């Protein structure tokens, strides 16, 4: 087994090979956490951020708390496994105090995965007026793995959550994403999932928002590109349960592969006459006008497709 120090190097190397900024994992003044398998390879706290993390038989339990009123900037998380086979269960709790503000930049890295399972349970609690963003980028091997991110968030009054899950590097494998957010008065939430499925990748996405407090607003957005025989099912769900709540489901799936299959189901429900929820979905081939515009600038059709896809998944 590799020594922790060389394992750390290998993780950081994989992180940077995948386009991550090495320096950011150890930037002074910013909190960070590095986990490989069930081992804690690095942890640094910062003013206003406390990180409690301990290994379990098959993963790590993490609790990160941000102190009331503190704006702590970015917190970097690098979580992964370098092995070919295995299972990793990450249970994480994010607790953000009143009027505090934090931006998580997370990279989940599985560069060698062949038969691997990565289960991620996220429990997010934002107190009133808190602001949190959580940008999670997955970097996979060419074989992909089984990934199950499950998020439950409760957003307090006037608090704000921005969540982005991005898996466009390497193969997906099998993804089952299940996100559910409940929102109080005046809060806002943006969920965004970006996926690039190829070959036999299978993707299931469920983004649900429950707008329970007056004036709560949210969007459940997804951008998915499917090549080969990849399949994706997206459920975007929003309930407006209080006056003046506003929600929008926005799903865009581009089907490029001969045998690829995309499915989108919006489920919107309003049980208050002053609430308003909308949805839009576009699935199928790339918009003709976008394609022809680029071709009219001299791009060949496949170059134009790549250009549009890159933008969509950026």
């Amino acid at each position, binding site marked *: 087994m590799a020594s922790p120090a060389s394992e750390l190097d290998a993780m950081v190397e994989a992180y940077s090979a995948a386009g991550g900024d090495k320096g950011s994992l150890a930037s002074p003044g910013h909190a960070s956490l590095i986990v490989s398998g069930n081992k804690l390879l690095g942890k640094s706290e910062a003013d206003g951020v406390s990180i409690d993390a301990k290994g379990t038989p098959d993963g790590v339990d993490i609790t990160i708390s941000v102190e009331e009123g503190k704006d702590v900037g970015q917190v970097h998380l690098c979580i992964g496994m370098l092995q070919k086979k295995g299972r990793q269960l990450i249970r994480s709790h994010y607790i953000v105090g009143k009027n505090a503000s934090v931006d998580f930049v997370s990279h989940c890295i599985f560069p060698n995965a062949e038969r691997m399972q990565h289960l991620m349970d996220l429990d997010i609690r934002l107190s009133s007026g808190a602001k949190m963003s959580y940008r999670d980028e997955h970097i996979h091997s060419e074989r992909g793995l089984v990934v199950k991110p499950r998020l439950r968030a409760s957003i307090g009054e006037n608090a704000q959550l921005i969540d982005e899950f991005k898996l466009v590097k390497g193969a997906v494998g099998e993804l089952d994403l299940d996100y559910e957010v409940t929102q109080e008065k005046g809060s806002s939430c943006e969920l965004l999932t970006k996926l690039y499925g190829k070959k036999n990748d299978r993707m299931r996405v469920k983004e649900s928002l429950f707008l329970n407090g007056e004036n709560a607003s949210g969007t459940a957005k997804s951008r998915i590109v499917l090549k080969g025989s990849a399949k994706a099912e997206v459920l975007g769900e929003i309930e407006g349960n209080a006056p003046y709540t506003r929600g929008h489901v926005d799903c865009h799936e581009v089907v490029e592969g001969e045998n690829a299959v995309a499915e989108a189901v919006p489920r919107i429900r309003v049980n208050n006459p002053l609430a308003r929820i909308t949805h839009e979905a576009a699935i199928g081939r790339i918009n003709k*006008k976008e394609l*022809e*515009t680029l071709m*009219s600038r*001299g791009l060949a059709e496949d170059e134009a497709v790549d*250009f549009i896809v890159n933008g969509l998944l950026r």
Partner: protein
Amino acid sequence: MAGILEARGLTYRIGKKDILNGLDLTIKKGEIHVIMGVNGTGKTTLASVVMGLGGYQPASGQLLFDGEDITTLSITERAKLGIMLAWQIPASFEGVAVREYLSLGGSNADVPSLLKMVGLSPQQYAGRFVDDSLSGGERKRIELAAVMAMKPKLVVLDEPDSGIDLASTGTITRLIRKFKENGASVLLITHNENMASVGDIVSLLCGGKIVKQGKARQMARFFEKYCKGCEHVGKVEEEKLNG
């Protein structure tokens, strides 16, 4: 002077309706050639046929570019010859920065001066996305800058002033002249008489054909007098043309 673009007997149909009906037109090298016509006369259709967009193959007739028959060439092939189109309602591109969009023709594009040329501040706009967060007018300016960046030989501008506030039409006319200064020929589509005044020659499209040609001033007067209130879109009234 040789024609950079020649349309010979172009006919384009939707169902049983001839949108273009044996249209003949010559754009001379280096000229700004205005096509005027009321809403629904087929101006955008003509632009689409010239660019070779999907579904716009003419039923009959020929298109020549610099003497070469391009009637069956693909969009990309036409673009590579130097034919460019600035769309009346441009498409939006998620996740694509203005900077990148203006560099489609190569990374040596001078993005700041292109943006200034269309009256947009480079600091404010170079990093914005070419998506729905731009207003219609902003998007159209960026489209014009993008086409300018490509250094076209023939540029088709489909109502470049529509959606742009009146106060800024000066910027647009200056830009159109700039195309000409750079050696490009311009096919300028408009239904605005003021815009038409930058043209070296104005052709009037009606009933799927070019029915009258002349100098900008004279044509603008004619358009104002007869076309503006005309409800017979698609029916040419011969006596007016000669009057």
